[in-house]
Each structure stands twice: as structure tokens, then as C-alpha cells.
């Protein structure tokens, strides 16, 4: 989608954003993109919004106002809850202060990090220390007084009576290096503060100095279980910017590959869910079958986990001669197997007791916290990007969007199981009809994208994955921002878990399906 920004006055910004939500029903804040627009315009943000009824999207551009030497923008946390973490991210990378945000702390980087790395005038520095990071136990809140001066105060994160348990960053049930500071009262969770950035690699910043084809390699390493989809989003946004027309063959193969990747990811999810609950058998079953999926992909792409298969204008190579046959055998094999995972683990009485009514979140909150993917669909939110903003072959094949109404962990799990059947259904329809044609539309040796801003999103395995591209006509992007699938899920952990037991934290975390390198980028 090429972005045509709406622009509001600084003073009217908060009320206009409220209007967009209340009157025009833009109730889903897709992402906030911080950007250094250059010397003339300074720092600012681009807000991408979606109307969840009509699926119309719009974007708002807001330049920061400089007050007492600091760049400031009014907060939107009171309108969309997801803005909490998104604004902290922008503060961390750009140093923009959000007026009225109750908890302005760094999100990804260490507290002793000097400067804000995404500003264009930031001086590169990669020194590090092995001392522990000294974390503040308060968040800053900023506002402007009557004369327009910047005021601040500290908001305490904990009270004196709070008992705080630190889970992570090296903990087997957080699926990576996530750290959750959990305030508990006995066994009841009172508050969860996520700490991110333990695997923050600065991919977006690196892309700014890479050429477009070079930047492709990094996306596969975000959520390695959705490697194909991530690359699809980046390739998609660049192709849209350049106006590349793909052949049908490319579209078919990309759709099949995306669905195979989704199967791979969901199989691992089903296994890890079981393992986190202590059921190792189901884990071994699903990992066994995952190897078959990987085989099918590997014969064509040459990679097991990270495939590096898509490229700007098509694919690296044509499909393997045995690909069609293998995929058909796989579909035939997997169909009855999925029921087996349910028999072994999903329908077990223990699973039902551990999952039902655990980590609840209703539809309204799901949209406000931007809980996309299967987790949101388990609360009845029709958010599948494949249906709402179809790309490639998704609007030409028959498949159902899985919508559940339980709003709890059990339905999130069931949603994943049901989606595997839909993936198989999509593959079945396409695999026999891959049309002849080129697998690659030849591009110029140096790829340049014309000036403009684009946003393109795909449905990853655990939510919407989008890429925002700001091009100034150069051979490398001016600003590239990825909308990670897991960031909003992590933000939603706190409201989901308040009042729940600490053991439910593991169950909720397992079933919500986040992968940390994707959150941290």
C-alpha cells in the first residue's frame, strides 16, 4: 500500500487521533514508525491505522515539536493500548518523548546506552561492558506546562510491599531470551513488566546501509519459523514500490511455500506447547513430522531452517522436479497426523484444565492491544491479512478463516490446530496447477526504488508481519521498519495475566506463540 499521510496540527493531534478512532472506526493501530526525516523536518512518527470493519487503512504523519531541546509528541496510549510498547520503542531508538506516556523507559537497549542509534546523526559505537545493567525502578512521565515548558516526574514501578519474581532472560519456558519481571501476591500475578532487547540486533538500522538485495538476508533471521513469510513481506514491499509484475508461477510457488512454512511453524508450536506443559511425547511426535515438511522445502531451497528463497522479482531458483510429488505425499501423510496430536495432547483432560479460561482477553481488548494472528482470532477478531488484504493467490483459493470465541488459551491452541488443516487445503488446491512460466522476472543489476513510502504486510505464523519502507530513490532504503508479530503479544501478556496464577503464565506464554528474535529484531 502506498502511503498518503494525513497531517495534523501539534495541538489538535490528540483529539484528531481520538476522532479517527471514535468517528471513523480506525480502532486497530497497526504500528508506529519512528523516523528521522532529515535536517529540515527533524524527527517524527508515522502511525498506520486500520478500520477493523472495512479493513481500510490510513496513515498519519506527525512531526515532533522541539521543546527545551527535546523532541516531543503527544501520546496515544489512552486511545490504543498497544501504543505503550510502540512509543517506548520509538523513544529508545529516536529519543522522542511522548507527552503523557506514564512509563518512558528504554525498551530494547541498555539503560547506559549513549544516544539514540536510529537518528541519522548518531555516531556509530559498538563498545560494550560486562557489568550488569542498572535498571531504574521508575518510569518517567513528561508533560508541557501552561507556558509550554517541559516538566517531568517519576512514576514508581513497584510499591514497597511488592514481591517481584524475575523470569528470564535465560528461562526454558520463555521461548528465547525474553525477560518478564512479574509482581506476585502469593501465587497471583499482579503485574508483568516485559523487558526486551536481549536479542536486539539492530536489523532495521543495518538495512539502511545495505543495498536492497543485501537486506533480504536479515529478515529470515527474525522469526526463523516464519522465515518465508518475513522475506515475502520485505520482497513484497520492494516489488510494490518498483511496480514489478510477477508471473503466476511465482505467485503459486510463493503461496505454497508460505503455507508449508506455516505448517512447519504450527507443528513446532504444537510441540512446544506440549513441552512447556511437561508433555514430552507430543513434542517428539510433532518434531518428527516437522522434519518431513522441512524435507519438502529443503529439496527446492537448499536450506533447512533458513531458506533464503525469495528474491526481488521472483525466486532464487525453480522448484525441484520432485517437489509436487513430495508435497502431495506430505499432505496425504499429515492430514490424519494432526488428529493424532490432538489425541495425544490437545484433548487430554489435563490440557483442558490447564488451558481453559486461562489468560483471557476479549475482542475489544484484543484489537486495542493489537493481538493479531491466531491469538486474536481465538477471541473472534477477523484479522487474517490473507483475507483482508489478499496477496498472491490467497483470494483465488477456497479456505476459511478460523474464528473462535473462547478468548482463552485453549482456543488459541485449537485455532493453530485448525489452521493447519486450512494450510493443507490451500496447498492441495494449488499444487497440481502450478502454471508454466518464469520463476524470476529479470531486474536491473542495481535495484533502486522510486521515492515514496509503502507498507506491505503478510500473515505470518503468529500474526501480521508488515514492512514499512521509506525510499528516497536510493539503492538502499532510507528507513525500513518491520512490524514484528510478537511485540504486541508481549504487551498483551500483562492484561491477560493480571489476577491469574503464576503457573498460568507459562501456559499463556506457550499458547500465544511468540518468538523473541522477531520481537527484538
Amino acid at each position: 500500500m502506498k502511503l498518503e499521510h494525513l497531517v495534523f496540527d501539534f495541538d489538535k493531534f490528540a483529539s484528531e487521533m481520538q476522532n479517527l478512532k471514535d468517528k471513523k472506526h480506525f480502532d486497530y493501530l497497526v504500528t508506529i514508525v519512528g523516523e528521522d526525516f532529515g535536517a529540515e523536518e527533524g524527527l517524527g512518527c508515522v502511525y498506520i491505522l486500520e478500520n477493523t470493519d472495512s479493513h481500510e487503512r490510513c496513515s498519519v504523519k506527525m512531526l515532533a515539536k522541539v521543546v527545551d531541546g527535546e523532541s516531543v509528541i503527544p501520546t496515544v496510549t489512552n486511545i490504543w493500548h498497544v501504543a505503550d510498547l510502540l512509543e517506548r520503542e520509538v523513544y529508545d531508538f529516536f529519543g522522542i518523548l511522548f507527552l503523557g506516556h506514564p512509563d518512558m523507559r528504554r525498551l530494547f537497549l541498555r539503560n547506559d546506552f549513549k544516544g539514540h542509534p536510529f537518528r541519522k546523526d548518531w555516531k556509530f559505537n559498538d563498545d560494550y561492558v560486562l557489568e550488569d545493567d542498572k535498571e531504574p525502578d521508575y518510569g518517567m512521565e513528561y508533560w508541557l506546562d501552561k507556558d509550554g515548558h517541559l516538566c517531568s516526574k517519576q512514576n514508581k514501578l513497584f510499591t514497597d510491599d511488592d514481591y517481584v519474581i524475575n523470569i528470564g532472560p535465560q528461562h526454558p519456558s520463555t521461548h528465547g531470551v525474553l525477560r518478564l519481571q512479574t509482581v506476585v501476591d502469593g501465587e497471583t500475578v499482579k503485574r508483568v513488566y516485559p523487558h526486551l532487547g536481549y536479542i536486539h540486533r539492530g536489523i532495521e538500522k543495518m538495512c539502511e546501509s545495505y543495498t536492497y538485495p543485501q537486506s533480504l538476508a536479515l529478515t529470515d533471521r527474525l522469526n526463523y519459523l516464519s522465515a518465508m513469510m518475513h522475506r515475502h513481506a520485505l520482497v513484497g514491499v520492494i516489488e510494490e514500490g518498483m511496480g514489478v509484475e510477477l508471473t503466476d508461477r511465482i505467485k503459486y510457488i510463493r503461496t505454497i511455500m508460505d503455507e508449508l512454512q506455516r505448517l512447519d511453524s504450527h507443528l513446532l508450536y504444537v510441540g512446544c506447547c506440549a513441552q512447556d506443559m511437561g508433555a514430552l511425547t507430543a513434542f517428539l511426535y510433532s518434531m518428527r513430522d516437522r522434519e518431513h515438511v522441512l524435507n519438502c522445502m529443503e529439496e527446492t531451497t537448499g536450506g533447512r531452517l533458513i531458506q533464503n528463497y525469495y528474491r526481488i522479482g521472483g525466486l532464487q531458483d525453480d522448484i525441484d522436479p520432485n517437489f509436487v510429488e513430495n508435497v502431495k505425499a506430505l499432505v496425504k501423510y499429515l492430514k490424519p497426523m494432526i488428529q493424532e496430536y490432538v489425541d495425544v495432547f490437545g484433548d487430554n483432560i489435563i490440557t483442558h484444565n490447564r488451558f481453559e479460561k486461562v489468560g483471557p482477553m476479549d475482542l475489544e481488548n484484543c484489537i486495542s492491544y493489537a493481538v493479531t494472528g491466531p491469538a486474536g482470532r481465538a477471541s473472534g477478531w477477523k484479522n487474517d491479512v490473507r483475507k483482508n488484504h489478499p496477496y498472491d493467490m490467497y483470494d483465488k483459493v477456497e479456505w476459511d478463516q478460523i474464528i473462535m470465541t473462547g478468548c482463552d488459551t485453549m482456543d488459541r491452541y485449537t485455532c493453530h490446530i485448525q489452521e493447519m488443516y486450512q494450510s493443507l487445503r490451500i496447498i492441495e488446491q494449488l499444487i497440481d496447477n502450478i502454471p508454466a512460466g518464469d520463476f524470476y522476472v529479470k531486474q536491473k543489476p542495481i535495484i533502486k526504488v522510486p521515492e515514496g513510502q509503502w507498507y506491505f504486510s503478510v500473515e505470518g505464523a503468529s500474526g501480521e508481519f508488515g514492512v514499512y519502507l521509506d525510499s528516497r530513490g536510493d539503492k538502499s532504503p532510507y528507513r525500513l521498519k518491520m512490524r514484528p508479530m510478537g511485540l504486541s503479544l508481549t504487551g498483551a501478556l500483562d492484561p491477560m495475566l493480571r489476577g491469574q496464577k503464576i503457573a498460568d503464565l507459562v501456559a499463556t506464554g506457550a499458547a500465544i506463540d511468540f518468538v523473541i528474535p522477531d520481537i527484538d529484531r
Partner: protein
Amino acid sequence: MEIKPKIKSIPYEEFKDNATLEKLIDDLHEGGVNVVTGSLDQLINWGRSNSLWSLTFATSCCGIEFMACGCSRYDFARFGFEVTRNSPRQADLIMCAGTITHKMAPALKRLYDEMAEPKYVIAVGGCAISGGPFKSSYHVVKGIEEIVPVDVFIPGCPPRPEAIMYGMMQLQRKVKIEKFFGGANHKQSEAERELGVSNEELVARRLGDHRREPIVVTDVPQEFVEQMKKEKEENA
């Protein structure tokens, strides 16, 4: 007494980098080998090398391949590697699978320090070896060897399970030639060996004495203390 680490089914010559291993053997056995302790060493090392317990320390992609190693198709239980521990106190080695960032570096160092000797480190994948694809990043450690000593490097992005198992076998060979009895532990740094103190001690000395003070519970109710005193006197 000749020492040649043996791995079942794979001849010695088929392993790569035997020169490094032989140099290590020469270094360790400079003063000759006592036949009694040498034989005991072999026995102990046979046991140790066949039950290497790793710490689950996966930060990114390579961790999934490590999981695949433990699962149905590759099943490295065949080699005795299947036990993974979540606590560094119980682990023999860190399988550092994934990128180490500046924020994670203190945690890695700390986990390594918490492990009991003898301990080993395997750097899995490009990121752990040199920063890999993220070498030009502002937030990535360019190889974990800057932080902890590494025994085996397994290249790849991510390495295939076969490669991980080959790396583990190389570590087995390394374990098999070690002198468990009376041998200097090659893991300690120069400073540690000279002073004869642990790494924790060195840190404590640098940061000041407050780190070493014993943990004392200060808010014991006075009544309880007196009651305990009374009981003690009565017993005496």
C-alpha cells in the same frame, strides 16, 4: 603411553583439525604420563565424554536446530548428549546457540561463571563465532570468544544437526585426552591461575568487598532471638 581419542565408527584420520588436538595432547603430557593415573584418567574421561550435559542456552535460530538434534530423526541421545539442564550448576557445557547482544553479554558471562569446573563452551553458528550476518551491527558481540573461552566452533547459519553432532564429537575427543587427575585446568585464565583464585573472587576484588559479605537476615524478631538463647542455655 600413547593417547589417541577414539570415537566409535569414525576413524581418527577422518576427523578434521587433528593437529590442534595433538598439540593439546603434547602440552598436557609434557612431563610424561603416569601409567596408573593415566589409566584412571581414561576411565573417568570415557564416562565424562559419554554423558555431556548441556545448558539450554538458545538465543535464536541455532537453538531450533539444537532442538531438532534432540528429537526423533537425529536423536543425539545415542551419544549421551540428550540431557539438557536449565541450571548452569548442573551443566557440563554451554551450547551457545545464537547471537549474543550487548544486553545479553553479562548474562552469558554470569552463566559461564556459575558453572562448575570442568566446563566447556561450544559456539554454534556464525553469530556466536564472529557476529555472523550481524557483524556490522551496533548491538552484537563479535564472537563470544571475547567473553568466554570457546572449545569448539560449529560454523553454519544455522549449522545442520549433522554439523552440531560432529562438533559434539570433537568435544568428546577433547574431553577424552584431558588429565583429570593432577592436570592443570586449562580453562582458567592466566590471572586466575597465577593467583589461584576463581573468577568470582577476581570480580569481587575489583568491585570491592561488599560483594563478598555473607547474607545476614537482619530483621529477626528480638523475642525469637531471646527464645533461642534461652533454649540453648537450657540444653547446655
